[in-house]
């Protein structure tokens, strides 16, 4: 293929989407005996990937990025939503149609140790997809200057002349001439074609003289060279290779059927750092050479920045921000992206960059928070208007207390606890006072801490509570005290509900929208982009300045 054609294809790529995902949800139903909730691994995701583009997908482990990738290649069944591939919804495909489509979308797995069957030789491994699909299924185009209708007999299936065909039979004066596509491992002379011309139609008969098994072997050898291995590796076993070489085998297998779209599921994260770059460069070269479209799943942000055109940041089954890589890295808009990027270590030791530390761990995808998925950990979560002026530490304490209650409510209770609850026995917190004290006492230094502790042992619970809440403004204090009372009466859910009603803002109440945040079409999933609230960035700056 000529250079001009390729660049032309790339120019139109931006406009034309190859993969379009609308409202995709993938839930795992773990089907416990006690009727548990499904794991919402992917919980409503929309994006599109342009032809020839590389979209990066980043996020913490467990955020659902691998599940999303696997759903795109139909290794998982989507619970809801659609995946349009070239405009066709592939989530509804089955049987032969699905099998046929699988040629177009392939996946490279994370662990080359586990993705290659160790009992098969490398040649057999790469060849298997070819065998499965009966490759090569020659597509034959008939180029007839008179434009008559053509019929085909013998090997191959007829395709329209304007599509790229494996074999092109040109009719024009006397015997037909045959042209075999360059990427096939055979010559024009391996194909015999004969024609019978009639008034309005042409009957073409094509026979390929080379055995399919030989073509497949040749194809595998060619693929081995394409991914930077050698022909003689055909007969080796995976365990005789290094991790990087094994990953190359995995890539060769994914490319065997000439797919258009490849999901790269953390393709380099299991590799040695020195090998990572080589494999990344290989992927880059292959993309240029074959016009591939990638979904690049990774948790290494620098790798993503290096290889991706656009990036989607995922958290708890949602895409928090998606946009052009460079722009997103330089100027993150979403609070989650901001926190995530601030975690990248700086190579400059003298640089004094403030880091945002997120509290706690991501909530369980079985029970995601209502509203914004990030609301339980967001450092710049919107406060209800009446608590705008409450001291930062105290507000943090309230959030922490609510989080503790939330987690307690969702924890897997053992049989004993369930039985106790049914019998009306004590199951609650017996240490709520300790928790409140811990949560609202603002970071005492070591010196102050010791005497305070000694003193607290003499105080009774009421006094300790009063002491802990001494600095809390009365508006907040009454609610906390009521909640503590409720907990003491073993009414934890009510206490949780009370705190939620009093202190929850829009963040925890309703899901945000994907707000466009730049001219390039970047969107961010955050309430703070609504005009009535401050943008996340200045709030972050304010926050970091305070520390």
């Amino acid at each position: 293929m000529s250079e001009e054609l390729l660049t032309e294809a790339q120019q139109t790529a931006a406009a034309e989407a190859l993969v379009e995902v609308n409202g995709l949800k993938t839930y795992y139903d773990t089907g416990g005996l006690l009727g548990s909730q499904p794991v919402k691994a992917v919980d409503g995701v929309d994006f599109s990937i342009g032809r020839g583009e590389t979209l990066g997908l980043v996020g913490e482990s467990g955020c659902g990025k691998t599940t999303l990738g696997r759903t795109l290649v139909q290794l998982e069944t989507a619970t809801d939503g659609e995946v349009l591939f070239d405009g066709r919804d592939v989530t509804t495909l089955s049987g032969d149609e699905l099998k046929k489509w699988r040629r177009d979308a392939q996946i490279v797995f994370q662990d080359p140790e586990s993705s290659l069957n160790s009992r098969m030789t490398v040649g057999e491994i790469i060849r298997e997809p070819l065998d499965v699909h009966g490759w090569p299924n020659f597509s034959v185009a008939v180029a007839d200057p008179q434009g008559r209708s053509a019929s085909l007999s013998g090997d191959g299936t007829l395709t329209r002349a304007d599509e790229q065909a494996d074999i092109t039979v040109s009719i024009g004066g006397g015997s037909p001439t045959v042209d075999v596509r360059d990427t096939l491992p055979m010559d024009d002379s391996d194909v015999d074609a004969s024609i019978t011309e009639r008034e309005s139609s042409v009957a073409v008969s094509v026979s390929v003289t080379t055995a399919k098994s030989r073509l497949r072997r040749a194809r595998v050898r060619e693929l081995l060279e394409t991914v930077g291995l050698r022909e003689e590796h055909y007969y080796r076993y995976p365990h005789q290779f290094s991790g990087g070489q094994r990953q190359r085998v995995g890539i060769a297998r994914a490319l065997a059927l000439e797919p258009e779209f490849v999901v790269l599921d953390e393709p380099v994260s299991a590799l040695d750092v020195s090998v990572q770059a080589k494999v990344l460069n290989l992927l880059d070269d292959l993309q240029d050479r074959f016009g591939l479209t990638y979904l690049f799943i990774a948790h290494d942000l620098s790798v993503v920045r290096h290889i991706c055109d656009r990036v989607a940041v995922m958290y708890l089954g949602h895409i928090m921000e998606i946009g052009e890589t460079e722009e997103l890295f330089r100027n993150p808009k979403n609070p989650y992206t901001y926190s995530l990027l601030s975690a990248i270590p700086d190579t400059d030791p003298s640089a004094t960059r403030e880091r945002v530390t997120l509290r706690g761990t991501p909530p369980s995808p079985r029970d995601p928070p209502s509203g914004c998925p990030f609301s339980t950990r967001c450092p710049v979560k919107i406060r209800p208007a009446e608590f705008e002026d409450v001291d930062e530490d105290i507000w943090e304490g309230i959030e922490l207390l609510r989080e503790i209650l939330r987690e307690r409510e969702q924890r897997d209770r053992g049989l004993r606890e369930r039985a106790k609850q049914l019998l009306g026995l004590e199951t609650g917190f017996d240490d709520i006072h300790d928790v409140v004290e811990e949560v609202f006492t603002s970071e005492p230094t070591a010196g102050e801490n010791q005497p305070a502790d000694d003193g607290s042992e003499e105080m009774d619970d009421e006094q300790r509570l009063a002491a802990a809440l001494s600095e809390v403004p009365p508006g907040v204090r009454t609610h906390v005290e009521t909640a503590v009372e409720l907990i003491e009466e073993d009414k934890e859910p009510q206490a949780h509900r009370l705190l939620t009603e009093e202190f929850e803002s829009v963040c925890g109440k309703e899901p945000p929208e994907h707000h466009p945040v730049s001219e390039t079409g970047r969107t961010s999933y955050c309430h703070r982009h609504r005009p009535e609230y401050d943008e996340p960035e200045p709030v972050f700056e304010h926050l970091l300045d305070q520390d």
Partner: protein
Amino acid sequence: MSETTDVLPFTQRLRSNPRPALLWVGVLLVLLALEAGAIASVAVTIVSGLAGAVASGAAAVVGGPVVPSIGGAIDAALTSAGQVANGLPTLLSRDAIPNQGYQTPDGAWHGTFLGLEPKHAWLLRVVVVYAYMFGLLWWCWRGYRLYVRHYRFADWTPRDDVVDRLRTHRWGQFGLVVVLLFVGMALFAPAISPMTAEQNLYNAAQHDIEYYDADSESVEKMSAFDANLASASRGAGSVNVNPWQYDDFGRFHPFGTMTNPGQDLFTFMAYGARVSLAIGLIAIGVSIVMAAGLSMLTAYYKGVIDLAVVFVSDSIQSLPGILLLLLVSATFQNHWFGQIYNGGLLLALTFGVVYWPGLWRAVRGPALQVAEQEWVDAAKSYGQRSATTMRKHMLPYTVSYLLIYGSMSLGGVIIGVSGLSFLGLGINPPIPEWGRAIATGQDYVTTPAWHISLLPGLLIVIVVTGFNALGDGIRDAMDPESEGEDADAGATAAGGGA
């Protein structure tokens, strides 16, 4: 590319260089011609057995008198065919190297091969039989090498590695030799046993033997039944024929004799090997196939299928196996299906059904583990069919467990069959069967007739060890990562021999 030259199909490659193949086939034909009689009679036996089963099956279904006439005609044809087959010359037969005769006072033996002592004549026959068998197998192996060298398309295939690994696996080879020795014993039972089955097991009263009577100083005739009775081992010093001894009638007993009615133990074991090994191997084969198939299904699909199989296998395992066998044996006692191979097939299938849950349990874990490997997902991602995925990407990883557990269960099946015989079900006398030898000898273990139980018991131990070793060898041969097996093999072999 190197392969442009050799893409000719097999027949063409054969035609272009026929000499090695023709030579090989010629030698093979000569080897087979030596045993033409035996091969022909085996074929006739199989055909008549099948015809008999079909006839009785048809009789059971139709219940009319039409069948006997046809059956009679077929029977007659088969009988004559059998006679023709028996008339063909056979190298490995007692006619060629007879070992039964009598000794006159001058020490000379009459009626034996070249006047050899019966012991030596018998040994010679055994050696010839095994030499023939191993020779034939070696020739087949040569044939494979020949094919690889001259006619195979590829210079190298993964199977070559498997073969190479087996060739350096001493413990596995030991197993192979042991297994072949036993299979040879079963196949060549008529040639390898010191006495005929007719004289020894089935119809002794109708056969006479000749012996030299010292009292009357002449060669006398006597019914084989009486001779057997007189030479039975009964545990007391004077009435015992221990291993490697002659009885009073000049007959050699390599394994001694059994108790009433005094059969030759070696003959009993050789014919018994046919029954016991067949039942054992069919039973284990059935349970391995079931366990393998179900483990693939349950590991691949999980969920409801897994639960269902757990339920079924637990139910089977909770049934007392012997009770189920009793039930089945009693139910089919007079049914034609229960008659096939003297009831052996029915027993084997029942044992297979009883044994598969254990095997399945043993491989369920490994199967689930391999189902989680990403290469299974990869196969799905390019649209490989589920059945092929299971066969290519999962089964090879569970076969090793199946081979090992299967070979260990083999002894249990053989003993189990004898338990049934003990209760009057299963394989009944006079059909020989290993377990029964152990059972009948149990009372004599502490007496001078200790051999009746001990030798069959030892044979079972050896055959189980042999299958186990062969299973080990196959497992290691199949695993491309077991390159450095040699070191271990020695240790295991030493352990096995101790």
